[in-house]
């Protein structure tokens, strides 16, 4: 009954770390910033573990701590917007576009240009398999807000990738596009 009681949530932290880190990378777009975020999250989770309800989802609880930490530090530091290629495009291998599949590099680039709120909602409900209800709890907003934000984020990606019409956004006008995106990121919209 000593060290190996499997139900202690502290012992489940280790296996949650890869997911936490993937979420952190999606939010922070910078691996070392993401790692700092994960470290802060682990420390906070560890010292607040008595507030965790074991009947609830540990991942959701940890993700909530992480995103709250991220947004409060974002408010404090007001970090400069990174280059348009961003962390995903720079670090991860690029696979060729198969028929009907977007070029991954272009997708990474567009994804990196989304606001953190849009990246967050898309990762939570589109990729990591949380329900809209769970995401709403984590984000501290209504379910309807999650749905409309996810839909706006998808629309934004669609526009950036020019999926709705035949134009090839990325072949010619990178500079102009980037300037527009940076401007809108700077004003926080």
């Amino acid at each position, binding site marked *: 009954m000593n060290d190996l009681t499997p139900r202690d949530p502290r012992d489940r932290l280790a296996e949650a770390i890869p997911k936490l880190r993937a979420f952190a990378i999606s939010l922070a777009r910078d691996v070392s910033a993401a790692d700092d975020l994960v470290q802060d999250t682990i420390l906070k989770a560890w010292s607040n573990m008595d507030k965790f309800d074991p009947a609830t989802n540990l991942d959701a609880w940890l993700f909530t701590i992480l995103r709250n930490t991220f947004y409060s530090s974002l408010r404090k530091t007001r970090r400069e917007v990174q280059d348009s290629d961003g962390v995903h495009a720079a670090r991860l291998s690029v696979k060729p576009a198969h028929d009907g599949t977007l070029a991954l590099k272009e997708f990474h680039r567009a994804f990196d240009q989304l606001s953190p709120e849009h990246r967050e909602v898309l*990762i939570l409900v589109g990729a990591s398999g949380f329900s809209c209800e769970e995401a709403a709890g984590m984000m501290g907003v209504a379910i309807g807000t999650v749905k409309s934000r996810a839909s706006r984020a998808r629309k934004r990606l669609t526009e950036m990738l020019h999926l709705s019409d035949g134009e090839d956004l990325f072949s010619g006008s990178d500079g102009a596009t980037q300037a527009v995106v940076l401007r809108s990121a700077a004003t926080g919209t």
Partner: protein
Amino acid sequence: MTKEKGEDGANRRAIREQIDENLKRVYRDSLSEELPDRFRDLLAQLKARDDTSQGGTGQGGAG
């Protein structure tokens, strides 16, 4: 307003599927990145600290 809804909707669904497929791939790629040792070390440190501060019979009186 005057768009043909059926074709438009199917197209939109296809786009959405592509986007979600790519989102999953972005997330999977991040998931499969190798974890730095610092997290394992951190957890080990936290655990060691708790074990020390609780002193001996950790199960006892919860504090």
